[in-house]
């Protein structure tokens, strides 16, 4: 009896070796082009660079594993989502870990880093960290990456209406916190 090989791949898909080559090349290019920007995005959420680099690394590892599902057209949006999700997980883990170990490095909005950023910016960033994660993400995507509401909605998996209302609440809340700190 002869066994029959059954392909689990999509009909018409290129041979496996060629697909792997494409994935390697494309993900490598993404990695080279967007590594720094992803570390920066993660830094704005988690505050310290070692952790931000871990988060970015996990996001790239994730896109490499799920390349077939993600595809080239959505790669950047996927990476941003993965970084924000990773940052949220890191912050959650840190909440517990903080009870046992100090953070690897003072966050960029800490008093230790005031000389690097300036007091005004430090105040703004420190106030930003007190917002709930979702609000902070919306503000970072809008005011750092300058994404449209539609792109923010796609990145966070929420509706545009939710983006607008979250941004509005986040800005109001941030304004109050900055006012209170004066």
């Amino acid at each position, binding site marked *: 009896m002869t066994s029959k090989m059954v392909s689990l791949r999509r009909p018409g898909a290129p041979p496996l070796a060629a697909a792997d080559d494409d994935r390697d090349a494309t993900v490598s290019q993404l990695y080279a082009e967007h590594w720094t920007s992803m*570390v920066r995005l993660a830094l704005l959420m988690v505050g310290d*660079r070692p952790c931000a680099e871990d988060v970015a690394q996990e996001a790239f590892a*994730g896109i490499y594993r799920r390349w077939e599902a993600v595809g080239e057209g959505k790669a950047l949006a996927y990476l941003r989502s993965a970084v924000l999700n990773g940052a949220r997980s890191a912050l959650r883990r840190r909440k517990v870990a903080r009870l046992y170990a100090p953070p690897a490095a003072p966050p960029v909005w800490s008093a230790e880093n*005031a000389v*690097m950023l300036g007091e005004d*910016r430090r105040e703004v960033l420190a106030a930003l960290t007190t917002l709930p994660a979702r609000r902070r993400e919306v503000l970072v995507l809008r005011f*750092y990456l300058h994404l449209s509401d539609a792109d923010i909605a796609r990145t966070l998996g929420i509706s545009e209406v939710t983006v607008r209302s979250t941004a509005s609440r986040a800005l109001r809340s*941030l304004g109050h916190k*900055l006012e209170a700190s004066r």
Partner: protein
Amino acid sequence: MTNTPYDRLTDALAAAARTVPDDLVPPGLPEQNRRHPSRGLLVGLVAAASVAAAALVVPSLASGDTELGVAGSQAPPGCPSPDPVKEIALPRSAPGKAGGGWLDGLPFGTAASLPVTVMKDASGGGYLQDGSLRVPLRAGYQFQAVGRIQCGWIGLSTRTGTNRQRFDAGVLSTSGAFRSFGSAPKQVVLGLSPDGRQVVVVRSTAGKHRLTVLDLADGREIRSTETGAVTGFGGWNTNGIWFSPNLLEARTLLWRPGQEPVAVDGLDGHRIVVQRTTDRMLVVPGAAGQPDCVRVVTLAGANRLAEVMRACGATDGALSHDGSVLQTTGPSGSRGYLVTQNKPTRFVGPPGVFDSDSAGSWEDDEHVLVTLSIPPRFRRVLLRCNVVRGGCLRVHDIPDDEPALLVGER
């Protein structure tokens, strides 16, 4: 300056993001492949994927080379172009590696926007880098730019490597050629006129010293007046040339070329610091290291000074090109002030960061370049600080004696 909450938020996020340097090298990605990725770079990435959730690779920026602008040699239109010259790499220290403490943790910013002389060592040669323009310098000579002029820089050329140093004031062309101002055996360039068309030098011949104004176009002597052996130069603004004929006497004169110098009242042994771009001036403590008040003044009448503001507890200071921002240094740290509002800026530098004698060179009306020496080995670092908004970035690490770096004036 940022005003609206949106501006503040945008500015703060951008500033925090910039603490991650542009040339951060991803783990597993060799630097030479950074812009031209190849399969090789995937080694680190695939390895990371295989340990997915536990991928706690902590990369660090171990080393890299400073890019002093584009390595081009295109002079501005209408100016001669220099021969190509190879870049001298200035190494960067990784955080915590070089014994500089918190300073080593400061990220690197962009290259200096002032003319900078880069040499392999203190013996001279090398090149002058100004923006994207890199001009080779004569071997055996150092050149320090005092100011930019059309198609070149005015400055002081110093011969090195001999016991008898030779100082030459002159013009370095964008072609790399140096033109000395005349044949005086010893002359020191002091500064440019407010319109940038004339230069004042001290010419010393046969034991006589004269403060001399030269025309930059042809090197012709326009005016001169007597001065002492150790002339202190305050600067040249639209009021005239401010100088002390003898630094030891603490007497300051104001000379309008064509008239006799007049003594300036109200300095009381303090030193005056004058910029050609503003008529606001700075009066700083005369004895280096002794804290006192630093005053911003203007000329009132023929030879009297009127105070605009003062900041006390400082050993030195510097005024921005437009006279709107004051930066002071002292035992309690370094501070910034908005002159017209007479109030501090957001900038506060820790004590010991700024050398009491070195107030820095202004790149623009907010940014100051300062060279620091970090104990215990007194490694040198060139920092850029924003004295209005606060915050500093490293521009270069300057390892021990080589390569050597001289920051000029704009």
